[in-house]
């Protein structure tokens, strides 16, 4: 076969060009540390890589969701632990108070402590996480239970009808009448025992002598004819002054009371969502008897105030039932935390696995690439050297 200058030239150029391309590709891999630069490098690997990367990001987001959920539930759990301690204290006090030897005065003193315990329980029910009430369910901007006071101190309170009121002008002495809010006529219930006082002008009337109060139902029974009046039509700055504190449920922007029901969901795994909140009702209401924490505490306090021993004993019974409900809610919260922690652990090991897979697909094996690079570089140099030797000489050089 004839070998000609052009042919030799073409071959030399071709070989040098090819080796140079190899060098450029390897250099790109070394400089970036990545094996996959564009889809055509390895189409199937790139498709897998995209899927895996997306999956990794999803897992990272689940991780955030779980951690956020854990924070929420830890706060819920802390609040429940404290409530548990307070419930135990209440029970101790109830058993003390139930004893036959306790006098009426001692029971009133015990009520002072129960009142504080009760206030503390309400504060715990209104626990917040990141500015949101944990027991309000989806309505988390609104406190589940509000402690209100009936103000009757300033001129404004009278002028703006902000004080509480009742109308006993028609029913007279001995008949219970409902307390209501003079602003919107809504009935007032769930008064805190021991906070009630009533005066007209400079005369302070005495509970259970001049009037009696049903704290839970929010009714007042005038016993003194002076009190059988319509507060609204007799009001004045120096007139009837009723002061007490009472509970109500939180209200939304439409003025509707919120239920605290409804779930707050977190997606913790692909397609798996979990409610991270414990609805208030499930924590404080004993469904078998219908008793719930606030009513029970009010009845307990009322029994103490009224020196009603059978009432105190009933309260112990009710307290136990509510306590059980609370314990089961606490256990459920604990179990959910466990479940989340297990999921978190699995999530983390899965993420590690995916990251490893992505690394196998994406990352250049440095040792391999470097040695390939060295090899290709040698071949390239050899190609250049042979080119200089083979192109120059021809017969011309030897004539």
């Amino acid at each position: 076969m004839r070998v000609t200058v052009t042919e030799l030239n073409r071959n030399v150029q071709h070989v040098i060009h090819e080796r140079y391309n190899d060098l450029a590709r390897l250099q790109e891999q070394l400089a970036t540390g990545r094996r996959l630069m564009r889809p055509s490098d390895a189409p199937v690997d790139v498709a897998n890589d995209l899927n895996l990367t997306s999956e990794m990001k999803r897992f990272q987001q689940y991780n955030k969701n779980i951690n956020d959920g854990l924070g929420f539930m830890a706060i819920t759990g802390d609040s429940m632990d404290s409530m548990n301690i307070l419930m135990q204290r209440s029970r101790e006090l109830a058993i003390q108070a139930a004893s036959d030897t306790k006098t009426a005065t001692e029971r009133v003193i015990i009520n002072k402590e129960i009142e504080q315990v009760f206030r503390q329980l309400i504060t715990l029910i209104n626990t917040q996480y990141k500015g949101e009430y944990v027991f309000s369910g989806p309505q988390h901007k609104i406190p589940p239970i509000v402690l209100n006071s009936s103000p009757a101190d300033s001129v404004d309170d009278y002028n703006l009808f902000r004080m509480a009121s009742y109308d006993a002008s028609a029913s007279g002495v001995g008949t219970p009448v409902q307390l209501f809010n003079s602003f919107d006529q809504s009935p007032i219930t769930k008064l805190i025992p021991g906070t009630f006082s009533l005066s007209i002008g400079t005369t302070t009337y005495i509970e259970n002598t001049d009037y009696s109060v049903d704290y839970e139902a929010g009714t007042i029974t005038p016993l003194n004819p002076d009190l059988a009046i319509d507060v609204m039509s007799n009001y004045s700055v120096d007139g009837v002054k009723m002061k007490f504190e009472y509970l109500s449920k939180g209200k939304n922007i439409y003025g509707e009371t919120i239920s605290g029901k409804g779930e707050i969901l977190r997606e913790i795994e692909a397609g798996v969502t979990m409610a991270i909140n414990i609805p208030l009702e499930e924590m404080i209401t004993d469904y078998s008897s219908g008793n719930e924490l606030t009513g029970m505490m009010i009845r307990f306090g009322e029994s103490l105030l009224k020196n009603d021993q059978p009432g105190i004993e009933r309260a112990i019974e009710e307290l136990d039932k509510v306590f059980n409900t609370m314990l089961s809610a606490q256990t459920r919260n604990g179990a959910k935390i466990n479940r989340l922690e297990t999921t978190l652990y699995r999530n983390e090991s899965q993420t590690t696995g995916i990251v490893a897979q992505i690394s196998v697909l994406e990352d250049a094996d440095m040792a391999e690439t470097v040695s390939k690079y060295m090899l290709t570089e040698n071949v390239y140099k050899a190609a250049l050297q042979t080119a200089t030797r083979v192109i120059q000489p021809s017969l011309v050089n030897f004539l």
Partner: protein
Amino acid sequence: MSLISNLGVGMRGLAASQLAMDITGQNISNADVEGYSRKRITQAAAYRRDPTYGQMGMGTEIINIERVRSSFLDVQIQNQNQEVGLWKEVDYTLESIENIFMEPTDTGIQTFIDSFFDSWQNLSNNPSNISAREMVKTSAEILNDVFHNLSNELSDLSRTRNDEILQRVNKVNELTKTIYDLNIEIGAVESGMNNANDSRDKRDMVLKELASIIDISVIENDVGQISVSSSGNLLVSPAYHQKLETTTSVFALPDGTSVGQIGIRVAETRNEFKPISGQIKGLIESRDVIIPKYQEKLDTLARSLVEKVNQLHTTGYNLNGYTGIEFFDSRTTGASDIQLSSSILTSVHNIAAASGGELHTATQNVLAAGGHNFGAAPQQLFRDPTWAAPVEARNVVKGTAIVSSPDAVLTEGTDYVIDYIHGTIQMLHAGYDSVDLRVDFQYRSGGFQGPGDNTNSVAIAKLRSDMTMEQDLHGNYTSTFTSFYSAFIGELGLNRNEASASLETRQFLIEQYESHQDAIAGVSLDEEMGNLIKYQHTYQASARLITTIDQMLDVLLNM
């Protein structure tokens, strides 16, 4: 046989050697000229009839100068060059598309789809948080920008490829004109029984270049002139050459702009010119098949995203308890015009993270004559106006409202408009002022759990792992956004690989053929140097012959 005729033999030898050395010199000096074929002289012994010896030598004679070249290999190279031209353009287009999509990197669209859904997850964790809502809006806007950008880049690529067709057509016309001119030259030379070697070399080069642009077939006549036709159209014949010309038809691009799409026809016959191979075919294929395919995939992705997110979003409730709000603008037709709905752009409060809503049918809504006059304030619709305290019917379901007068059903948009969110109706002209209007519709209520409800945002975030795309025969979805996209990037990679492999195979074949052609037609300097010495010696010998005869004549004349 005389001494004088012997002198003639010497002379012919000198002339032949000189000519041969000319040719050798030509070969040596053109050794590295592309397309040059080495020339060879055909030399034969000259003779005459002789009564005594039959034939008597009269020295040497140059019969012709011919080029050494395999025309079969030239045809092979032309054929492969057409394919190289085609695949080169296709490969370039696919490479550009790869660069546009920038996968697998952190700047590809996949990253932004992921952050979009991450932001929904984040919103689920903080449903009433305004900054979490802003994040959803911002990540959606970034995603939209990326969609727009990709779509524009694909349109630009399509436009550039289109423009290149014009340049290639001009090149074809230039080349066919050159072939026609060379035909005339070759015809003039070869009809005189000579070889137009250098013109043929030039013509072969031009044919090779032409073959990379369009498919060609070549027929040669008996005086060496060729006819070139492409896809059934005769472009060059010995008698004439025919130009191609371009036509422009306006073609709308998805991004709203339009481009003059270039078509090609044969100037005189007005036949549409459709090459089956070569660069022009590659450009047309890129513009009409490859780029639209990826554009369509991108559009499908954008449309599905809009459809699926809106489907859930319209059933959800915003921070203030309203429903029926779109997240993306439902008029989106593809990647180029995907955008957020005006409600979301106005306020992030309108992002519907909360869920719920049961469907109810409203009854007894009758607007008494006079109340709903044209120009009056919008009339409130009620759940049931007969209730003691009627409740406003908010969140009216789009498409369920029927407004009728005793005689006719009114047309929405012409006769009246409804504010679906607030549940009010307003007349657009005074035509129905004096009649009672009955309004039937459905509304949603009761589902709104409060601003802390994240059920709907969880549902939207879950779309990421849901089957949302590519329906099978039974109408079930078979892939997620991610798997659809990664499959389409995988396909892009495979297509590019196929194009690159085809290109490389063809280029390798051409290398082989050209190597063969070089072996035949290339100049070997060693060989030429050998020839040079050979001809030098024959020249010297011929000169010596003449000197010898001269001396003999000298002897004879001085006798």
